């Protein structure tokens, strides 16, 4: 059983939970979106700065479980420096990884560090924890104004 537990809570996830990266307010963000998981009450705000079609800064604020905090943290590291198109593609492929859906959605370059979340698909109750920050950054990239809900 502890094997399953460590499949989910891999060291990288525990590390990003303890020391989340880019967890800060960005006052001059170009785009901002809010995400909410009504099931558990997790809230996240994602800030994005864009230069041309490139994401030059991403940060988040909020509180949540280890999976959602680590996912938000790793999301910021992955999205920073990407073009808008690359970032949205990354969101789709990450979503495919977490939900265990069609492999084709994961075509393209490997997900790198994000593969650490591959264990989440075995825990259906926790999928939304891993995808909240990603849905939220996707909304920010699309400049959507309504808060994102995972329900």
């Amino acid at each position, binding site marked *: *059983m502890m094997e399953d537990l460590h499949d989910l809570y891999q060291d990288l996830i525990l590390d990003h*939970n303890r020391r989340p990266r880019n967890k800060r307010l960005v006052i001059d963000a170009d785009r901002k979106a809010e995400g909410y998981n009504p*099931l*558990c009450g997790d809230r996240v705000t994602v800030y994005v700065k864009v230069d041309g079609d490139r994401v030059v800064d991403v940060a988040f604020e909020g509180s949540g*479980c*280890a999976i959602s905090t680590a996912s938000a943290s790793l999301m910021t590291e992955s999205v920073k420096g990407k073009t808008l198109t690359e970032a949205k593609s990354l969101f789709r492929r990450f979503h495919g990884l977490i939900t265990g859906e069609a492999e084709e959605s994961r075509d393209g370059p490997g997900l790198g560090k994000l593969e650490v979340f591959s264990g989440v698909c075995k*825990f259906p*109750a*926790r999928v939304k*924890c891993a995808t909240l920050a990603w849905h939220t950054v996707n909304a920010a990239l699309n400049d959507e104004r309504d808060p994102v809900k995972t329900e």
Partner: protein
Amino acid sequence: MTSAVSQSTRKSPPATGRLDVRRIREDFPILDTKVNGRPLVYLDNAATAQKPRIVLEAMDRYYREQNANVHRGVHHLSVVATKAYEDARLRVQRFIGAECPQEIVFVRSATEAINLVAQSYGRPRLRAGDEIVISAMEHHSNIVPWQMLCGQTGAILRVAPIDDAGELMLDGYEALLGPRTRLVSLCYVSNALGTINPVGEAMELAHARGIPVMLDGAQAAPHLRLDVRALDCEFLAITGHKLFGPTGIGVLYGKRSLLEAMEPYQGGGDMIKSVTFEKTEYNDLPHKFEAGTPNIAGTIGLAAAIDYVERIGLEAVAAYEDGLLRRATEVLSAIPQVRIIGTARHKAAVVSFVVDCAHAHDVGTVLDLEGIAVRTGHHCAQPVMDRFGVPATARASMAFYNTMEEIDALADGVRKVVKMFG
């Protein structure tokens, strides 16, 4: 053919003061389940309780041998089904000490019972500026129906405060009772905190001002004896599935004079005496509030569950569960990273807690992998979470089939959480 109610008492747990928990556990087939290769430790009884075999058998027997619609037709099965349904009503009446079966309305849940009172009692009577008083520890089901009623009538919802232990502050509550207060609705036992409210005192204060009181007894029924005449509440809501019965069946108790004066909640079959396109004459109590084909099997299962619980004895249950509560409080308090939310002097066997290094959902997942089922989240009581400044808690809620060993397994699981996230 005898009714399902009397048949359902064939196999009974011992009616002694001390519980034979090992034998009781044999009555609950699901407790043999393995989860992630471990024996299930079911500590989510406040969400829903497990069902003893006699409940399953009574419902199965109904569908196999007695199924027909009730209050319709003269054929044999319809007569049998109607008797079983009305016997279940008598069983509930005796269980809560109501004066007559007309005071027992079958609904689908405690939630529906509260909505029924809000809409049938409250809506025609309340005017703009009137007030409804609830407490800060209510389940959403005892908040939202009143908010909806306030939206419809212009009435105002007042919320009685609770203290840091999770106890109702009676002076703050009393201060809210005024000339415009039309109804008080309080939980007897808090689902999120386990607090047993001083409903006797709260009702005295309301009744002294002529204010009727509704009690949400959903969490109380599995732990405490409910006697509506001793309590003297105007309305009481209970639900079957937390009382070891099936889901989809609940009970509204109301004082007869009040129910008589209320308009029906829903229209349809069974709630009428006569219908023409010009005018409909409503049926008598309690059928006036039971439009449509009811959950017949649910009432039969509920009656069997009540038989089961009464055989064990709620006094014995309360004493045994108090031991579980004390053990759970002790072993969890001994873990430095754990903070118990809800430390009222009078509590049902519910322990809500947070682990300072881990979110409730992470606690829940780690425990689940140990086979331990607890509820994590806001427990449909977000204002309670806000009151204590936590986004969510983990909640272990016990029943009479839980053991001290299971409580110790919970503590071991929480120590694993601390080791992993600390």
